[in-house]
Every structure is written in C-alpha cells, then in structure tokens.
C-alpha cells in the first residue's frame, strides 16, 4: 500500500470529473475543518443539480469566505441536507433563505447528531437505525417509530455520499489524515460515507508511513485525492472570527 501518492496538483484537477446531480458533503463546523478551497473550485467548476450535505450553509457573516451558500446562489444546487436551514439567530437572514422560500432549492432539515450518525451508518454498512432524537417533534410527524424497552425511537436511514470534501491538517501519500483540534468535526465521518473523498491539507503531503499507524485519525483507505493548500492569498485559510455585521 501507499506506493502511489494520492496527491493532485490543483483543486481544479481534484473536482474536474464531478458530474451534475452528485451528492456532496462538506466538512467543517464554523471555520475549522471547512474545505474553503474545494468549495471555491466547485464554484468555478459549475456542476449543477447538486445535493449538499453539511452542518449549515454559513453566509450570514461578513466578510464571507467561499461557503456552500454561494453554490446555492450560483444556481448549482437542487437540494440541501443540513442541521440548520435558518440561522441560529432569527434576526440573521441567510442568503440561502430566499432560494428556499421561493422553492428553487429543496431542503431536508436533520438534527446534527442524526446527520452525523446517518453518515456514519452509510460508511459502516448500517442501512437504518433507531434514535431518540426528534421523537415528539414536527420532524417525526408521520414517520415510523418503535418502542424499545419502553421508550419511543425514530427510524433513520443511512445517508450515502458520492463525494466528501474535507479539510485536514496533515496527510501522507497513502491518504492517512490527521486533524488539528476541532478541525476534526464531521470530516472523518463524511470520509467513510463517500465513494470519493477529496481532502485539502494544511501541510505538505508526507511520504507514506510518516504518520505513525497509532496516530492516524482517518485511514487512507477512505481518502482518494489530496491537495495541499497553498499559502494565502492563493490558498484560503481560517481567519479570526469576524464580528457580525448587524
């Protein structure tokens, strides 16, 4: 293993073959772990009728990094599967909202833990599972539930992906990844659920074996393409949290 490097030369190359209609997940929770550079490349690439799986859209804050809300605004998106389809602060209006309200884009709202577990299930060959989350709420209306040991649970299905776009801190040529701090978030989970995982990486790609087997966060078998993020301004990097423009 690891005889051939998974490193590609550019973000453009990494997304070049993505067809219209793909289901693509994007890692990241706030700034850390968000694949800004791959999002930018996908904006340039122009694939259409996409389904976007992520925690949230971003976009209420200014100035804006390339975020998946821009894919919506760019007319590339048919549907989103997110834990937030509105901002946490009801006074913030997301750029996404008008596309959703007009019916141009469809949305499935999924509790964050259920989203993570549905992705994990897809990667781990579990087609469906029961969870206590959302029982008794509007999200459970008309859906199948089951009482187990006296408690009511909701049936949830795996969420398989065509592509996962993720960001890591360090990688070796075999695709083994490490994340720094809360950069980890959804990234390792999405990597297992995708037919093709593309990682943008903070540091230069190391030779296979340079990350000790005990120190790997995501095994290389889940990672298909690697691109190193160039220094700013060419490459996009997390910045300090911006004050909200009110």
């Amino acid at each position, binding site marked *: 293993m690891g005889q051939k490097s998974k490193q590609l030369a550019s973000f453009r190359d990494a997304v070049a073959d993505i067809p219209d209609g793909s289901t693509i997940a994007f890692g990241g929770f706030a700034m850390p772990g968000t694949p800004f550079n791959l999002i930018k490349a996908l904006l340039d690439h122009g694939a259409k009728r996409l389904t976007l799986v992520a925690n949230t859209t971003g976009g209420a804050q200014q100035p804006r990094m390339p975020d998946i809300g821009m894919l919506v605004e760019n007319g590339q998106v048919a549907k989103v599967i997110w834990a937030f389809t509105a901002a946490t602060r009801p006074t913030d209006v997301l750029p996404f909202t008008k596309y959703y309200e007009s019916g141009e884009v469809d949305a499935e709202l999924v509790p964050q833990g259920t989203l993570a577990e549905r992705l994990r299930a897809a990667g781990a060959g579990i087609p469906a599972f029961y969870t206590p989350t959302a029982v008794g709420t*509007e999200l459970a209306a008309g859906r199948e539930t089951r009482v187990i040991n006296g408690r009511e649970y909701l049936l949830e299905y795996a969420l398989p992906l065509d592509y996962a776009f993720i960001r890591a801190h360090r990688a070796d040529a075999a695709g083994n990844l490490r994340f720094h701090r809360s950069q980890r978030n959804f990234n390792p989970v999405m990597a297992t659920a995708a037919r093709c995982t593309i990682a943008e990486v903070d540091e230069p790609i190391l030779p296979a074996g340079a990350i000790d087997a005990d120190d790997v966060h995501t095994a290389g078998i889940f990672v298909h393409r690697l691109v190193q993020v160039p220094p700013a301004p060419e490459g996009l990097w997390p910045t300090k*949290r911006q004050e909200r423009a009110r």
Partner: protein
Amino acid sequence: MSETRQKGLARQQMADRVALEFQDGWIVNLGVGIPTMCSNTDIGDRDITYHSENGVIGYGGVAAAGEEDLNLVNAGGQNVTLKPGAAVVHHADSFGIIRGGHIDVTVMGAYQVSMGGDFANWKLAGQKGGGIGGAMDLAACAKRVFIILEHVTRKGEPRLVEACDLPVTARGVVKLVATNYGLFEPTGSGFLLREIAPGLTVEEIRASTAGTLTVAPDLRPVRLAG
C-alpha cells in the same frame, strides 16, 4: 437575545444561578448565548468537563486576543482553550457521547418552556426551515436539560406557557428553568417558583407567566454564589 434592560437578573446572573447546580464530576454541554456564560461562574473546586458538539471534551475559557488557535472553537464558534486532560473526537463520536447519555446536563436557551417540560428553540412561527443544530439530540438524550431564557418576549408575552405553540425541540425533558425573574421547575401541572429575583414580586411573576404558577413553601431569593 435582547440587549434591552430587563427586570430582575442580568444575563450573567441567570447563568451564574444555573452554574451553581453543576455537581463535581459532571460533563456539561452549554448552548450558544447566555448558557455559554455558565463557564464564567466560580463554583469552587468542582471538577466540570465542558463538552462541545464539535467533539471537544474539556474546553476552557475563551482564548486571549492574539493567542487564538483558529482551528479550535466551541459550539458558538468562539476560539476557546483546552484544559489539561482534554480530548477531541469526531462528530459521530461526539453525538455518541450525547445520545449515549454521557452528558450530565445541557443548558440551552429557548423561546418557550411548557408546564410539562416541553420546550421550543429551533423555529419561529411561520418560518420555513429552522436551526436545530445539536439541540434535539441534546434535549432528548442529556441526563438533565436546564433552560435559561428571558421571562417575557420583547413584546411582553410570557415564555413560560401552558403548552408550547411553537414547534417543540423535545417533550417532557426540562428539569430547571432560570429566567431574569427567578428559578422555576416545570411540574407537569404548572411551574414551581423556587427562587425569586431581586425587585420582583410573586404577583408580577404570575402575571407574566402563562401557565399555572405555584410557589415553593421555602421560596427564597435567587442564590448567586456557592
């Protein structure tokens, strides 16, 4: 949440009161907004582990300016620090911790809390879509749910209600409610007022509460220090 000057407790005081409930050894998840302020409260040498949805177990205070790690945030997106003994896991494992019942308490904000312990915090009336985030998982699965909210809306309408008219986040889970007016327990048939904020009267509170209000026999002023 409103910055308008409200009667009774200030925001940090509501957080302080709730933080006093945290017991030694607890694993605590703090929601965005006022709940985050619970970690500012001095509760002596009680050993509390703060957990964040993004998989950070054991975060500490907000990082000093210039010392931020831009890849380390809490659930509110603030650049925080780590305490000794901290660990990081991925999102599925982080919600495994939540769903598995390993969180001793989650403290959240809300739009409404009902007498039966339902609460609503993800969707406003008439809104398309909403912001659930990790709230439904935490609400359904943490060992205890504590809510902090302003006692009335900006328009003066009660937030403690007989039944939520907004879409609920979870049903029958709220154990304790701190508002700027005092400390309450949903009992199923009403709200039990246990502690009252300075400057408020029981009658004022009753008038601003939509459900049945009962008063604890040992009603006392809101406790603000351990």
